[in-house]
Protein backbone atom coordinates (compact mmCIF):
# COMPACT_ATOMS: atom_id res chain seq x y z
CA UNK A 1 0.00 0.00 0.00
CA UNK A 2 1.34 3.38 -0.95
CA UNK A 3 0.99 6.18 1.52
CA UNK A 4 -1.55 8.78 0.35
CA UNK A 5 0.69 11.42 1.80
CA UNK A 6 2.83 11.55 -1.28
CA UNK A 7 2.76 14.25 -3.86
CA UNK A 8 2.30 13.68 -7.58
CA UNK A 9 5.95 12.93 -8.07
CA UNK A 10 5.69 10.25 -5.42
CA UNK A 11 7.88 12.14 -2.96
CA UNK A 12 7.15 11.72 0.70
CA UNK A 13 6.30 14.83 2.64
CA UNK A 14 8.55 16.29 5.23
CA UNK A 15 7.46 14.98 8.60
CA UNK A 16 5.93 17.46 11.02
CA UNK A 17 5.23 19.76 8.07
CA UNK A 18 1.57 20.29 8.88
CA UNK A 19 -0.55 23.35 8.27
CA UNK A 20 -3.49 24.07 10.48
CA UNK A 21 -6.14 25.35 8.10
CA UNK A 22 -7.65 27.66 10.65
CA UNK A 23 -4.39 29.32 11.59
CA UNK A 24 -2.47 31.71 9.39
CA UNK A 25 -0.66 30.10 6.48
CA UNK A 26 3.06 29.96 7.04
CA UNK A 27 4.09 31.47 3.73
CA UNK A 28 7.79 31.38 4.56
CA UNK A 29 7.77 27.64 5.20
CA UNK A 30 5.71 27.06 2.08
CA UNK A 31 8.21 29.10 0.08
CA UNK A 32 11.02 26.95 1.49
CA UNK A 33 9.23 23.80 0.36
CA UNK A 34 8.62 25.31 -3.07
CA UNK A 35 12.28 26.38 -3.35
CA UNK A 36 11.38 30.05 -3.64
CA UNK A 37 12.66 33.04 -1.73
CA UNK A 38 11.02 36.41 -1.19
CA UNK A 39 12.07 39.74 0.18
CA UNK A 40 10.18 40.90 3.29
CA UNK A 41 7.99 43.18 1.17
CA UNK A 42 7.23 40.43 -1.35
CA UNK A 43 6.54 38.00 1.45
CA UNK A 44 3.88 40.17 3.05
CA UNK A 45 2.25 40.64 -0.36
CA UNK A 46 2.32 36.89 -0.96
CA UNK A 47 0.87 36.27 2.49
CA UNK A 48 -2.13 38.44 1.56
CA UNK A 49 -2.48 36.69 -1.79
CA UNK A 50 -2.23 33.23 -0.26
CA UNK A 51 -4.86 34.03 2.39
CA UNK A 52 -7.11 35.27 -0.39
CA UNK A 53 -6.52 32.23 -2.62
CA UNK A 54 -6.78 29.65 0.15
CA UNK A 55 -10.04 31.12 1.46
CA UNK A 56 -11.32 30.87 -2.13
CA UNK A 57 -10.13 27.25 -2.43
CA UNK A 58 -11.66 26.32 0.95
CA UNK A 59 -15.12 26.28 -0.62
CA UNK A 60 -14.26 22.90 -2.11
CA UNK A 61 -14.52 21.42 1.39
CA UNK A 62 -18.27 22.12 1.40
CA UNK A 63 -18.82 19.81 -1.56
CA UNK A 64 -20.72 16.65 -0.72
CA UNK A 65 -18.40 14.60 -2.86
CA UNK A 66 -18.36 10.95 -1.97
CA UNK A 67 -17.17 9.61 -5.29
CA UNK A 68 -13.81 7.91 -5.05
CA UNK A 69 -11.41 9.85 -7.22
CA UNK A 70 -8.72 7.23 -7.16
CA UNK A 71 -8.81 3.74 -8.52
CA UNK A 72 -6.93 2.65 -5.46
CA UNK A 73 -6.34 4.65 -2.36
CA UNK A 74 -2.99 6.29 -2.56
CA UNK A 75 -2.51 5.77 -6.24
CA UNK A 76 -0.49 8.46 -7.91
CA UNK A 77 -2.92 10.95 -9.41
CA UNK A 78 -1.06 11.40 -12.63
CA UNK A 79 -1.02 7.70 -13.26
CA UNK A 80 -4.75 7.18 -12.66
CA UNK A 81 -5.72 10.29 -14.55
CA UNK A 82 -3.60 9.98 -17.62
CA UNK A 83 -3.65 6.30 -18.51
CA UNK A 84 -6.17 5.46 -21.21
CA UNK A 85 -7.76 2.05 -21.54
CA UNK A 86 -5.35 0.98 -24.24
CA UNK A 87 -2.25 1.85 -22.25
CA UNK A 88 -0.17 -0.95 -20.89
CA UNK A 89 2.24 -0.64 -18.03
CA UNK A 90 5.49 -2.23 -17.04
CA UNK A 91 7.93 -1.92 -14.19
CA UNK A 92 10.31 0.96 -14.75
CA UNK A 93 13.99 0.19 -15.30
CA UNK A 94 14.88 2.67 -12.60
CA UNK A 95 12.80 0.93 -9.91
CA UNK A 96 14.85 -0.12 -6.89
CA UNK A 97 15.70 -3.82 -7.17
CA UNK A 98 14.06 -4.71 -3.88
CA UNK A 99 10.81 -3.04 -4.90
CA UNK A 100 10.19 -4.18 -8.45
CA UNK A 101 7.05 -6.05 -7.42
CA UNK A 102 5.55 -2.84 -6.13
CA UNK A 103 2.95 -1.52 -8.57
CA UNK A 104 4.05 1.93 -7.64
CA UNK A 105 6.93 1.63 -10.05
CA UNK A 106 4.74 0.57 -12.98
CA UNK A 107 4.91 3.20 -15.71
CA UNK A 108 3.22 3.43 -19.13
CA UNK A 109 5.03 1.16 -21.57
CA UNK A 110 5.99 3.98 -23.89
CA UNK A 111 7.65 5.86 -21.05
CA UNK A 112 9.44 2.71 -19.96
CA UNK A 113 10.79 2.33 -23.47
Amino acid sequence: MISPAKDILGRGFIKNQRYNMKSKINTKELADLAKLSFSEKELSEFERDMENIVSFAKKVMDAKAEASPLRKDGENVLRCDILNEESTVEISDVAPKGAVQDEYFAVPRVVAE
Partner: protein
Amino acid sequence: MSILKKHISALRDGEYSAEELCRSYLSKIEGEDSLYNAFLHVDCEGALKAARRADEMLKDGDAPLLCGIPFALKDNICTKGIPTTAASATLKDFIPPYDATAASLLKNSGAVLLGKTNMDEFAMGADTKSSAYKITKNPKNTDMTPGGSSGGSAAAVAAGFAPFALGSDTGGSVRQPASFCGCVGLAPTYGAVSRYGLIAFASSLDRIGILADSCSDCRIILPAICKKDPKDSTSKGIDSFENERKDLKGLRIGIAEEFFSDSISEDVKTRVMAAAEVLSSLGATLVNLSLPSLEYATEAYYIISSAEASSNLARYDGVRFGHRSDSPFCTIDEFYKNNRSEGLGKEAKRRIMLGTFVLSAGSYDDYYKKALSVRELVREDYRKAFEKCDIILSPTAPETASLVNGKPRTPASVYSEDFSTVSQSLAGLPAISVPCGTDRNGLPVGMQLTGPAFSESLLIFVGECYEEVAK
Protein backbone atom coordinates in the same frame (compact mmCIF):
# COMPACT_ATOMS: atom_id res chain seq x y z
CA MET B 1 -16.04 31.52 -48.29
CA SER B 2 -13.84 31.17 -45.18
CA ILE B 3 -10.32 32.59 -45.23
CA LEU B 4 -8.74 29.15 -45.09
CA LYS B 5 -10.87 27.74 -47.93
CA LYS B 6 -10.05 30.82 -50.01
CA HIS B 7 -6.29 30.30 -49.55
CA ILE B 8 -6.51 26.55 -50.16
CA SER B 9 -8.31 27.04 -53.45
CA ALA B 10 -6.15 30.01 -54.54
CA LEU B 11 -2.93 28.08 -53.88
CA ARG B 12 -4.20 25.15 -55.95
CA ASP B 13 -5.50 27.34 -58.77
CA GLY B 14 -2.15 29.14 -58.93
CA GLU B 15 -3.79 32.49 -58.12
CA TYR B 16 -0.84 33.13 -55.82
CA SER B 17 2.05 31.03 -54.51
CA ALA B 18 2.68 29.90 -50.94
CA GLU B 19 5.72 32.21 -50.88
CA GLU B 20 3.62 35.22 -51.95
CA LEU B 21 1.01 34.35 -49.34
CA CYS B 22 3.68 33.97 -46.67
CA ARG B 23 5.30 37.30 -47.59
CA SER B 24 1.94 39.08 -47.38
CA TYR B 25 1.34 37.77 -43.84
CA LEU B 26 4.92 38.55 -42.75
CA SER B 27 4.64 42.09 -44.03
CA LYS B 28 1.32 42.58 -42.22
CA ILE B 29 2.91 41.34 -39.00
CA GLU B 30 5.93 43.60 -39.49
CA GLY B 31 3.73 46.62 -40.17
CA GLU B 32 1.03 46.19 -37.54
CA ASP B 33 2.12 43.93 -34.70
CA SER B 34 3.58 46.84 -32.75
CA LEU B 35 -0.07 47.83 -32.15
CA TYR B 36 -1.06 44.51 -30.61
CA ASN B 37 2.11 42.63 -29.53
CA ALA B 38 0.65 39.31 -30.63
CA PHE B 39 4.02 37.72 -31.45
CA LEU B 40 7.05 37.00 -29.29
CA HIS B 41 9.14 35.70 -32.16
CA VAL B 42 8.62 35.89 -35.93
CA ASP B 43 10.63 33.39 -37.98
CA CYS B 44 10.80 35.19 -41.36
CA GLU B 45 13.62 33.09 -42.80
CA GLY B 46 12.17 29.75 -41.69
CA ALA B 47 8.69 30.71 -42.90
CA LEU B 48 9.89 31.68 -46.37
CA LYS B 49 11.93 28.49 -46.63
CA ALA B 50 8.88 26.41 -45.63
CA ALA B 51 6.71 28.33 -48.10
CA ARG B 52 9.11 27.57 -50.97
CA ARG B 53 9.04 23.90 -49.99
CA ALA B 54 5.23 24.04 -49.93
CA ASP B 55 5.24 25.50 -53.46
CA GLU B 56 7.27 22.46 -54.58
CA MET B 57 4.77 20.11 -52.91
CA LEU B 58 1.85 21.95 -54.53
CA LYS B 59 3.51 21.67 -57.94
CA ASP B 60 3.94 17.92 -57.49
CA GLY B 61 0.20 17.56 -56.80
CA ASP B 62 -1.44 15.52 -54.00
CA ALA B 63 -0.36 18.07 -51.41
CA PRO B 64 -2.24 17.96 -48.07
CA LEU B 65 -5.01 20.56 -47.62
CA LEU B 66 -2.96 22.79 -45.33
CA CYS B 67 0.05 22.85 -47.65
CA GLY B 68 1.27 26.45 -48.01
CA ILE B 69 -1.09 27.82 -45.34
CA PRO B 70 0.64 30.10 -42.80
CA PHE B 71 -0.05 29.59 -39.09
CA ALA B 72 1.16 30.71 -35.66
CA LEU B 73 1.91 28.73 -32.50
CA LYS B 74 1.55 29.66 -28.87
CA ASP B 75 4.99 30.00 -27.32
CA ASN B 76 4.58 26.97 -25.04
CA ILE B 77 4.54 24.58 -28.02
CA CYS B 78 8.09 23.42 -28.71
CA THR B 79 9.59 24.21 -32.10
CA LYS B 80 12.96 22.85 -33.16
CA GLY B 81 15.55 25.62 -33.52
CA ILE B 82 13.06 28.41 -32.69
CA PRO B 83 12.96 30.03 -29.22
CA THR B 84 10.19 28.66 -27.01
CA THR B 85 9.86 30.59 -23.78
CA ALA B 86 6.30 29.97 -22.53
CA ALA B 87 6.52 33.77 -21.97
CA SER B 88 8.73 33.13 -18.94
CA ALA B 89 12.03 34.83 -18.17
CA THR B 90 13.32 31.51 -16.90
CA LEU B 91 13.18 30.07 -20.46
CA LYS B 92 14.55 33.22 -22.13
CA ASP B 93 17.28 31.38 -23.98
CA PHE B 94 15.57 28.02 -24.46
CA ILE B 95 15.69 26.68 -28.02
CA PRO B 96 14.10 23.22 -28.15
CA PRO B 97 15.99 20.48 -29.99
CA TYR B 98 12.71 18.94 -31.19
CA ASP B 99 9.24 19.82 -32.48
CA ALA B 100 6.05 19.20 -30.53
CA THR B 101 3.96 16.54 -32.27
CA ALA B 102 1.22 19.05 -33.19
CA ALA B 103 3.83 21.40 -34.68
CA SER B 104 5.54 18.63 -36.60
CA LEU B 105 2.21 17.30 -38.00
CA LEU B 106 1.41 20.76 -39.34
CA LYS B 107 4.91 21.26 -40.75
CA ASN B 108 4.82 17.84 -42.41
CA SER B 109 1.52 18.71 -44.05
CA GLY B 110 3.25 21.71 -45.63
CA ALA B 111 1.78 24.40 -43.38
CA VAL B 112 4.08 27.39 -42.89
CA LEU B 113 5.01 28.47 -39.35
CA LEU B 114 5.14 32.27 -39.12
CA GLY B 115 6.16 32.58 -35.49
CA LYS B 116 5.41 32.12 -31.81
CA THR B 117 2.70 34.07 -30.04
CA ASN B 118 2.59 35.78 -26.66
CA MET B 119 0.82 34.22 -23.72
CA ASP B 120 0.49 34.36 -19.95
CA GLU B 121 3.63 32.93 -18.33
CA PHE B 122 3.37 29.12 -18.41
CA ALA B 123 -0.28 29.57 -19.52
CA MET B 124 -1.23 30.78 -16.03
CA GLY B 125 -3.57 33.72 -16.48
CA ALA B 126 -6.57 35.00 -18.34
CA ASP B 127 -5.42 38.31 -19.86
CA THR B 128 -1.91 37.75 -21.35
CA LYS B 129 -0.59 40.34 -18.91
CA SER B 130 1.60 37.93 -16.94
CA SER B 131 3.97 37.45 -19.90
CA ALA B 132 7.55 38.32 -18.93
CA TYR B 133 8.05 40.08 -22.27
CA LYS B 134 5.09 42.17 -23.41
CA ILE B 135 1.40 42.85 -22.94
CA THR B 136 -0.82 41.85 -25.84
CA LYS B 137 -3.76 44.05 -26.78
CA ASN B 138 -7.12 43.09 -28.23
CA PRO B 139 -7.30 43.91 -31.97
CA LYS B 140 -11.03 44.68 -31.59
CA ASN B 141 -10.19 47.45 -29.12
CA THR B 142 -6.61 48.11 -28.04
CA ASP B 143 -7.70 49.41 -24.62
CA MET B 144 -8.84 45.89 -23.85
CA THR B 145 -7.02 42.63 -23.13
CA PRO B 146 -7.27 39.78 -25.63
CA GLY B 147 -8.02 37.34 -22.80
CA GLY B 148 -5.67 34.51 -22.07
CA SER B 149 -3.66 32.60 -21.71
CA SER B 150 -3.57 32.08 -25.50
CA GLY B 151 -4.13 35.82 -25.99
CA GLY B 152 -1.32 36.19 -28.55
CA SER B 153 -2.74 33.41 -30.73
CA ALA B 154 -6.26 34.85 -30.54
CA ALA B 155 -4.98 38.37 -31.28
CA ALA B 156 -2.93 37.05 -34.24
CA VAL B 157 -6.03 35.46 -35.79
CA ALA B 158 -8.29 38.42 -35.02
CA ALA B 159 -5.76 40.91 -36.45
CA GLY B 160 -5.37 38.86 -39.63
CA PHE B 161 -1.70 37.99 -38.91
CA ALA B 162 -2.39 34.29 -39.48
CA PRO B 163 -5.38 32.36 -40.86
CA PHE B 164 -5.18 30.10 -37.82
CA ALA B 165 -3.10 29.48 -34.72
CA LEU B 166 -2.68 26.80 -32.10
CA GLY B 167 -3.01 27.56 -28.41
CA SER B 168 -3.24 25.50 -25.26
CA ASP B 169 -6.33 25.16 -23.07
CA THR B 170 -5.94 24.03 -19.45
CA GLY B 171 -8.99 25.77 -17.96
CA GLY B 172 -10.34 27.78 -20.90
CA SER B 173 -7.19 29.37 -22.33
CA VAL B 174 -8.23 28.85 -25.94
CA ARG B 175 -11.97 29.43 -25.60
CA GLN B 176 -11.92 32.59 -23.48
CA PRO B 177 -9.46 34.59 -25.67
CA ALA B 178 -11.36 33.41 -28.75
CA SER B 179 -14.50 34.84 -27.19
CA PHE B 180 -12.78 38.15 -26.31
CA CYS B 181 -11.23 38.58 -29.77
CA GLY B 182 -14.23 37.47 -31.82
CA CYS B 183 -12.75 34.31 -33.30
CA VAL B 184 -13.51 30.61 -32.97
CA GLY B 185 -11.67 28.61 -30.29
CA LEU B 186 -11.81 24.84 -30.12
CA ALA B 187 -10.57 22.83 -27.13
CA PRO B 188 -10.66 19.22 -28.34
CA THR B 189 -11.31 16.21 -26.10
CA TYR B 190 -8.42 15.51 -23.70
CA GLY B 191 -6.17 13.10 -25.59
CA ALA B 192 -7.39 14.02 -29.09
CA VAL B 193 -4.23 16.03 -29.78
CA SER B 194 -0.85 14.84 -28.52
CA ARG B 195 0.65 16.88 -25.68
CA TYR B 196 4.18 15.81 -26.60
CA GLY B 197 6.26 18.99 -26.77
CA LEU B 198 3.68 21.16 -25.01
CA ILE B 199 5.40 22.79 -22.03
CA ALA B 200 3.49 21.24 -19.14
CA PHE B 201 1.34 23.29 -16.80
CA ALA B 202 -1.20 20.75 -15.47
CA SER B 203 -0.73 17.46 -17.26
CA SER B 204 -4.16 15.96 -16.58
CA LEU B 205 -5.89 19.09 -17.93
CA ASP B 206 -3.61 20.50 -20.68
CA ARG B 207 -4.79 20.23 -24.28
CA ILE B 208 -3.70 21.84 -27.51
CA GLY B 209 -6.52 23.72 -29.22
CA ILE B 210 -7.28 25.69 -32.37
CA LEU B 211 -7.99 29.40 -32.87
CA ALA B 212 -9.44 30.18 -36.27
CA ASP B 213 -11.63 32.55 -38.20
CA SER B 214 -14.61 30.21 -38.47
CA CYS B 215 -15.95 26.79 -37.48
CA SER B 216 -15.52 25.51 -41.04
CA ASP B 217 -11.81 26.40 -40.80
CA CYS B 218 -11.60 24.33 -37.60
CA ARG B 219 -13.09 21.40 -39.54
CA ILE B 220 -10.14 21.58 -41.96
CA ILE B 221 -7.42 22.05 -39.32
CA LEU B 222 -8.53 19.48 -36.72
CA PRO B 223 -7.82 16.27 -38.71
CA ALA B 224 -4.29 17.51 -39.38
CA ILE B 225 -3.37 17.56 -35.68
CA CYS B 226 -5.51 14.75 -34.20
CA LYS B 227 -3.32 11.70 -34.48
CA LYS B 228 -2.56 9.01 -31.92
CA ASP B 229 0.99 9.58 -30.79
CA PRO B 230 3.18 6.93 -29.17
CA LYS B 231 5.12 9.75 -27.49
CA ASP B 232 2.05 10.72 -25.40
CA SER B 233 0.47 7.81 -23.54
CA THR B 234 -2.75 9.81 -23.08
CA SER B 235 -3.22 10.47 -26.77
CA LYS B 236 -5.97 8.66 -28.64
CA GLY B 237 -6.36 10.81 -31.74
CA ILE B 238 -9.73 10.92 -33.47
CA ASP B 239 -10.69 8.10 -35.83
CA SER B 240 -13.55 9.72 -37.69
CA PHE B 241 -14.38 13.30 -38.56
CA GLU B 242 -17.62 12.39 -40.33
CA ASN B 243 -20.73 14.24 -39.29
CA GLU B 244 -23.94 12.27 -39.84
CA ARG B 245 -26.24 15.25 -39.43
CA LYS B 246 -27.51 17.25 -42.37
CA ASP B 247 -29.35 19.80 -40.21
CA LEU B 248 -30.19 20.60 -36.59
CA LYS B 249 -33.66 19.01 -36.60
CA GLY B 250 -34.09 16.94 -33.45
CA LEU B 251 -30.80 18.04 -31.92
CA ARG B 252 -31.24 18.49 -28.16
CA ILE B 253 -29.37 21.50 -26.79
CA GLY B 254 -29.03 21.57 -23.00
CA ILE B 255 -29.21 24.87 -21.14
CA ALA B 256 -27.81 24.47 -17.63
CA GLU B 257 -29.11 27.08 -15.19
CA GLU B 258 -25.75 27.15 -13.36
CA PHE B 259 -24.09 28.70 -16.43
CA PHE B 260 -26.51 31.65 -16.38
CA SER B 261 -26.05 32.80 -12.80
CA ASP B 262 -26.08 36.42 -11.62
CA SER B 263 -22.33 36.71 -12.21
CA ILE B 264 -22.94 36.64 -15.98
CA SER B 265 -23.35 40.10 -17.48
CA GLU B 266 -26.74 40.95 -18.94
CA ASP B 267 -25.24 41.64 -22.38
CA VAL B 268 -23.58 38.23 -22.49
CA LYS B 269 -26.74 36.46 -21.29
CA THR B 270 -28.84 38.24 -23.90
CA ARG B 271 -26.49 37.42 -26.79
CA VAL B 272 -26.12 33.76 -25.82
CA MET B 273 -29.85 33.28 -25.34
CA ALA B 274 -30.46 34.96 -28.70
CA ALA B 275 -28.04 32.42 -30.23
CA ALA B 276 -30.01 29.63 -28.53
CA GLU B 277 -33.15 30.94 -30.19
CA VAL B 278 -31.40 30.97 -33.57
CA LEU B 279 -30.39 27.33 -33.10
CA SER B 280 -33.92 26.53 -31.99
CA SER B 281 -35.32 28.19 -35.12
CA LEU B 282 -33.08 25.85 -37.14
CA GLY B 283 -34.83 22.83 -35.63
CA ALA B 284 -32.95 22.19 -32.39
CA THR B 285 -34.85 21.57 -29.15
CA LEU B 286 -33.78 23.45 -26.02
CA VAL B 287 -33.68 21.29 -22.88
CA ASN B 288 -33.34 22.72 -19.36
CA LEU B 289 -30.96 20.84 -17.12
CA SER B 290 -28.81 21.21 -14.04
CA LEU B 291 -25.12 20.60 -13.34
CA PRO B 292 -25.01 21.04 -9.54
CA SER B 293 -21.33 20.20 -9.09
CA LEU B 294 -20.38 23.31 -11.08
CA GLU B 295 -20.69 25.21 -7.82
CA TYR B 296 -17.34 23.77 -6.73
CA ALA B 297 -15.70 23.28 -10.13
CA THR B 298 -13.63 26.47 -10.19
CA GLU B 299 -12.10 25.84 -6.76
CA ALA B 300 -11.43 22.18 -7.64
CA TYR B 301 -9.82 23.25 -10.90
CA TYR B 302 -7.46 25.70 -9.18
CA ILE B 303 -6.47 23.14 -6.56
CA ILE B 304 -5.76 20.37 -9.07
CA SER B 305 -4.06 22.56 -11.67
CA SER B 306 -1.87 24.29 -9.07
CA ALA B 307 -0.90 20.95 -7.51
CA GLU B 308 0.19 19.64 -10.89
CA ALA B 309 1.89 22.95 -11.73
CA SER B 310 3.95 22.85 -8.53
CA SER B 311 5.29 19.49 -9.67
CA ASN B 312 5.72 20.37 -13.36
CA LEU B 313 7.51 23.64 -12.61
CA ALA B 314 9.93 21.98 -10.19
CA ARG B 315 12.21 21.36 -13.18
CA TYR B 316 12.94 25.10 -13.59
CA ASP B 317 15.66 25.04 -10.97
CA GLY B 318 18.51 26.35 -13.08
CA VAL B 319 20.11 22.91 -13.26
CA ARG B 320 17.71 20.86 -15.35
CA PHE B 321 16.00 23.81 -17.05
CA GLY B 322 15.70 27.53 -16.63
CA HIS B 323 17.49 30.68 -15.60
CA ARG B 324 20.72 30.42 -13.59
CA SER B 325 21.31 33.27 -11.19
CA ASP B 326 24.65 35.06 -10.68
CA SER B 327 23.86 35.68 -7.00
CA PRO B 328 26.22 34.05 -4.50
CA PHE B 329 25.00 30.99 -2.58
CA CYS B 330 26.20 28.74 0.25
CA THR B 331 23.89 25.74 -0.04
CA ILE B 332 22.26 23.90 -2.93
CA ASP B 333 18.85 25.03 -1.63
CA GLU B 334 19.94 28.65 -1.82
CA PHE B 335 21.19 28.06 -5.34
CA TYR B 336 17.79 26.63 -6.43
CA LYS B 337 15.92 29.43 -4.67
CA ASN B 338 17.99 32.14 -6.37
CA ASN B 339 17.44 30.60 -9.80
CA ARG B 340 13.72 30.04 -9.36
CA SER B 341 12.97 33.34 -7.63
CA GLU B 342 14.70 35.38 -10.33
CA GLY B 343 13.36 33.32 -13.24
CA LEU B 344 9.70 32.80 -12.36
CA GLY B 345 7.02 35.48 -12.42
CA LYS B 346 4.52 36.42 -9.73
CA GLU B 347 1.54 34.39 -10.97
CA ALA B 348 3.65 31.26 -11.52
CA LYS B 349 4.97 31.63 -7.95
CA ARG B 350 1.42 32.00 -6.60
CA ARG B 351 0.32 28.79 -8.32
CA ILE B 352 3.42 26.91 -7.13
CA MET B 353 2.76 28.09 -3.58
CA LEU B 354 -0.91 27.06 -3.73
CA GLY B 355 0.06 23.70 -5.24
CA THR B 356 2.66 23.13 -2.53
CA PHE B 357 0.10 24.05 0.12
CA VAL B 358 -2.67 21.72 -1.10
CA LEU B 359 -0.23 18.82 -1.43
CA SER B 360 1.26 19.30 2.01
CA ALA B 361 0.41 16.60 4.53
CA GLY B 362 -2.04 18.64 6.60
CA SER B 363 -4.00 19.90 3.59
CA TYR B 364 -3.86 16.96 1.20
CA ASP B 365 -7.16 15.33 2.23
CA ASP B 366 -9.07 18.56 2.78
CA TYR B 367 -8.11 20.23 -0.45
CA TYR B 368 -6.45 18.01 -3.00
CA LYS B 369 -8.31 14.76 -2.41
CA LYS B 370 -11.59 16.64 -2.08
CA ALA B 371 -10.91 18.44 -5.36
CA LEU B 372 -10.34 15.09 -7.07
CA SER B 373 -13.71 13.93 -5.73
CA VAL B 374 -15.35 17.07 -7.09
CA ARG B 375 -13.73 16.34 -10.43
CA GLU B 376 -15.47 12.94 -10.43
CA LEU B 377 -18.79 14.62 -9.60
CA VAL B 378 -18.35 17.03 -12.50
CA ARG B 379 -17.66 14.14 -14.87
CA GLU B 380 -20.72 12.30 -13.54
CA ASP B 381 -22.95 15.39 -13.88
CA TYR B 382 -21.91 15.79 -17.52
CA ARG B 383 -22.46 12.07 -18.18
CA LYS B 384 -26.01 12.33 -16.80
CA ALA B 385 -26.62 15.58 -18.71
CA PHE B 386 -25.70 13.95 -22.02
CA GLU B 387 -28.44 11.37 -21.46
CA LYS B 388 -30.90 14.28 -21.75
CA CYS B 389 -29.21 16.34 -24.45
CA ASP B 390 -26.68 16.10 -27.29
CA ILE B 391 -24.72 19.27 -26.55
CA ILE B 392 -24.75 22.01 -23.91
CA LEU B 393 -24.88 25.73 -24.70
CA SER B 394 -23.39 28.30 -22.31
CA PRO B 395 -21.55 31.62 -22.33
CA THR B 396 -17.80 31.24 -22.89
CA ALA B 397 -17.00 33.94 -20.34
CA PRO B 398 -19.13 35.84 -17.82
CA GLU B 399 -18.05 39.21 -19.23
CA THR B 400 -16.55 40.62 -22.41
CA ALA B 401 -12.88 41.72 -22.59
CA SER B 402 -11.54 43.71 -19.63
CA LEU B 403 -9.42 46.87 -19.67
CA VAL B 404 -5.64 46.45 -20.08
CA ASN B 405 -5.14 49.15 -17.44
CA GLY B 406 -8.04 48.13 -15.21
CA LYS B 407 -7.97 48.33 -11.42
CA PRO B 408 -5.89 45.60 -9.72
CA ARG B 409 -8.06 42.78 -8.37
CA THR B 410 -7.54 40.00 -5.85
CA PRO B 411 -6.36 36.67 -7.30
CA ALA B 412 -9.55 34.92 -6.14
CA SER B 413 -11.84 37.35 -7.98
CA VAL B 414 -9.81 36.84 -11.16
CA TYR B 415 -9.85 33.03 -10.78
CA SER B 416 -13.61 32.91 -10.23
CA GLU B 417 -14.16 34.34 -13.72
CA ASP B 418 -13.03 31.03 -15.22
CA PHE B 419 -16.29 29.54 -14.02
CA SER B 420 -17.71 28.92 -17.51
CA THR B 421 -14.75 27.03 -18.92
CA VAL B 422 -13.11 24.97 -16.16
CA SER B 423 -15.73 22.24 -15.78
CA GLN B 424 -15.20 21.04 -19.37
CA SER B 425 -11.48 20.86 -18.65
CA LEU B 426 -12.01 18.84 -15.46
CA ALA B 427 -14.17 16.40 -17.43
CA GLY B 428 -11.84 16.39 -20.47
CA LEU B 429 -14.75 17.26 -22.76
CA PRO B 430 -14.53 19.06 -26.11
CA ALA B 431 -15.88 22.61 -26.23
CA ILE B 432 -15.93 25.32 -28.85
CA SER B 433 -16.37 29.06 -28.49
CA VAL B 434 -18.25 30.67 -31.38
CA PRO B 435 -18.76 34.46 -31.75
CA CYS B 436 -22.41 35.38 -31.24
CA GLY B 437 -22.55 39.16 -31.50
CA THR B 438 -21.24 42.06 -29.46
CA ASP B 439 -22.07 43.83 -26.21
CA ARG B 440 -23.18 47.48 -25.96
CA ASN B 441 -19.54 48.61 -26.31
CA GLY B 442 -19.01 46.64 -29.49
CA LEU B 443 -16.88 43.97 -27.83
CA PRO B 444 -17.30 40.37 -29.02
CA VAL B 445 -19.37 37.87 -27.05
CA GLY B 446 -18.78 34.13 -27.40
CA MET B 447 -21.13 31.21 -26.90
CA GLN B 448 -19.70 27.90 -25.82
CA LEU B 449 -20.88 24.53 -27.11
CA THR B 450 -19.84 21.49 -25.07
CA GLY B 451 -20.33 17.89 -26.16
CA PRO B 452 -19.51 14.35 -25.03
CA ALA B 453 -15.96 13.08 -25.54
CA PHE B 454 -14.90 13.01 -29.21
CA SER B 455 -17.96 14.90 -30.46
CA GLU B 456 -15.84 17.65 -32.07
CA SER B 457 -17.41 17.07 -35.46
CA LEU B 458 -20.92 17.67 -34.10
CA LEU B 459 -19.84 20.80 -32.21
CA ILE B 460 -18.21 22.22 -35.32
CA PHE B 461 -21.31 21.38 -37.38
CA VAL B 462 -23.62 23.21 -34.96
CA GLY B 463 -21.24 26.17 -35.04
CA GLU B 464 -21.25 26.12 -38.85
CA CYS B 465 -25.07 26.11 -38.93
CA TYR B 466 -25.09 29.13 -36.60
CA GLU B 467 -22.41 30.96 -38.62
CA GLU B 468 -24.40 30.39 -41.80
CA VAL B 469 -27.46 32.14 -40.32
CA ALA B 470 -25.52 34.78 -38.37
CA LYS B 471 -23.78 35.96 -41.54
